């Protein structure tokens, strides 16, 4: 599938992000067994995730709340600094660049956010919001060129350009999300990170926004990194899917492969739990317990506490993603040992 000369557009290797829970020295002091000890607690949001995104694909990252999918998006977008690991974009390492050095990459990489009510500045008109990035990144454009550019982008997302003097609160959620998409398209990006772009929207509006994103992909040759918890959207939108659980990669596969033959026990449970429109009620796989807290992670496989197939090896040794015959990668000892079939 991948020739040796071709480079992935985005390459994440061994990405880790830990958030400190106790900020400042005084907060680290704890009272344990009759004495005061200094102890730092950390939230392990992302644990050694490695991924690649090819040019022109829509890589979906799915998982439940707390699995670290949004953190991955924010790390790639440069909104957070990784604790360990590297991010390469177009062959260039970007996770250690300063703001100035990152500027040319900012133009190529954009992000769309979840909440259309918060992702536009309430005190800026649509015109101001759309013009600002153009003015910032292409200061040489004349006033009329700028106006044309804004009008063109507005039209391309289906918002009447004559509304450019309105404020965000005058628009519905779906329109705001389209305007937010328009804003990210004004700088002509090639890579767009979308963090749950439709989960705050109604069903009929979700379709509008998804269609818009598909259109933009076809017209502009965009590459997407699409973060979502909604598996039916993944099936429709994604070319490849990465399933995260508790900050670790469980399974990475082509969309069709993943939905036809999920391999990781967690992926199976996740897929079976989606409410269906079909007549028969599928028996979903019940997971025991609940997602453990990402503070002070258990050793071994992150999923072992809820997995029906867990063995002593699973609780001792962390599984690494292993390439399967159909091209998918699965991080599971049971799959590796062939215990699941």
């Amino acid at each position, binding site marked *: 599938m991948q020739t040796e000369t071709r480079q992935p557009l985005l390459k994440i290797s061994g990405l880790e992000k830990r958030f400190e829970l106790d900020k400042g020295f005084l907060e680290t002091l704890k009272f344990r067994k009759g004495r005061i000890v200094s102890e730092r607690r950390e939230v392990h949001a992302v644990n050694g995730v490695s991924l690649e995104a090819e040019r022109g694909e829509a890589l979906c990252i799915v998982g439940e709340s707390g699995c670290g999918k949004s953190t991955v998006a924010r790390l790639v977008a440069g909104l957070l600094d990784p604790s360990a690991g590297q991010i390469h974009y177009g062959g260039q390492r970007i996770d250690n660049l300063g703001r100035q050095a990152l500027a040319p990459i*900012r133009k190529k990489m954009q*992000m769309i956010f979840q909440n259309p009510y*918060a992702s*536009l*500045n309430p*005190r800026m008109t649509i015109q101001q919001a759309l013009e600002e990035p153009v003015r910032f990144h292409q200061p040489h454009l004349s006033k009329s060129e700028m106006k044309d550019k804004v009008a063109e982008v507005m039209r391309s997302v289906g918002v009447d350009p004559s509304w450019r*003097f309105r404020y965000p609160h005058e628009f519905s959620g779906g329109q705001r999300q389209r305007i937010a998409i328009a*804003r*990210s398209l004004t700088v002509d990006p090639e890579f767009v990170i979308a963090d749950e772009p439709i989960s705050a929207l109604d069903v009929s509006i979700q379709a509008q926004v998804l269609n818009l994103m598909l259109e933009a992909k076809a017209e502009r040759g965009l590459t997407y990194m699409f973060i979502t918890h909604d598996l039916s959207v993944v099936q429709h939108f994604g070319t490849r899917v990465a399933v995260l659980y508790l900050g670790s990669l469980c399974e990475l596969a082509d969309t069709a492969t993943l939905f036809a033959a999920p391999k990781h026990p967690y992926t199976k449970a996740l897929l079976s739990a989606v409410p269906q429109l079909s007549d028969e009620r599928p028996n979903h796989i019940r997971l025991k317990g609940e997602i453990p807290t990402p503070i002070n992670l258990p050793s071994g496989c992150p999923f072992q506490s809820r997995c029906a197939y867990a063995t002593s090896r699973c609780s001792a040794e962390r599984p690494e993603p292993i390439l399967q015959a159909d091209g998918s990668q699965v991080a599971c000892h049971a799959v590796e040992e062939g215990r699941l079939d």
Partner: protein
Amino acid sequence: MTTQTNPQARGSSFWQSNFVYSFRKSPIAIISMIVFLLIALSAFFAPLLAPVDPYNQALFDIMDSELPPVWETYGDPRFIFGTDPQGRDMLSAILYGTRLSLLIGICAVAVQAFLGISIGLIAGYVGGRLDSLLMRMADIQLSFSTLMVAIIFLAVSQAIFGSDTFNKYAIVMLIVVIGVAEWPQYARTVRACVLAEKKKEYVDSARVLGFGPLRIMVRHILPNALSPIFVISTVQVANAIISEASLSFLGLGMPPSQPSLGLLISSGFDYIFSGSWWITTIPGIVLVVLVLVINLLGDWMRDVLNPRLYKGDK
């Protein structure tokens, strides 16, 4: 395509209409606004309205001293609010005094706002150690009362520079002292606002677009923190006017040749028992009314601009 409309008029129509609507529905706000405008305008046009120039001692006649207001038995129609012991027309003195008080109040708040907003923005946006440092400074500043700081500062500078130099720069001194002493009010409010706004996605989206921190702070975050800034500004103007009056009352403010409201109250204090109540009482009433209407307007504004009541857009 529809024709272009004025972006300001059309864009902020919601905000405007809400603002104007609640103003029209609030009799207290309307009355306060009228009274405030009355006082502010007459203070502003004091040189035109005042019968005499109260700063020009050559115009005073000692024979006119301590005349009561017109409605009292020995009132003189030339002096509506009576005169002080030097024969100065009280109406003119009050008009000029109010002018000074308002000027000092507003300028001091401008100084506070500039310092407080800058520090608050930086502390909130940058965060970390700088935030801790700035906020501890604010805490220390707040643990001294404004008056105490001002009294020490003004007394010391009066002693160092001598009365004459001090009197010359009294306005500037008062503005700076009241301004510097109260910046933490702004800094704290702005910082809290920045911390709340910083979490919102439009700030992330600006960062993803590669904008620098200064641009994000000033162009994106600050406009969204304006509502609470407006609200505390009104309260702070009222506070600054009171601070100035207190300092002048204590003799640490304006020189007797250019009396502010506080000094008028204080200078009349000695005569209150000799029956000349008007020298203290009338400027006192003006001060109380002025501060009261500003506070009432501030209260009303807080209710209208309350982010919890109106920010949800729905």
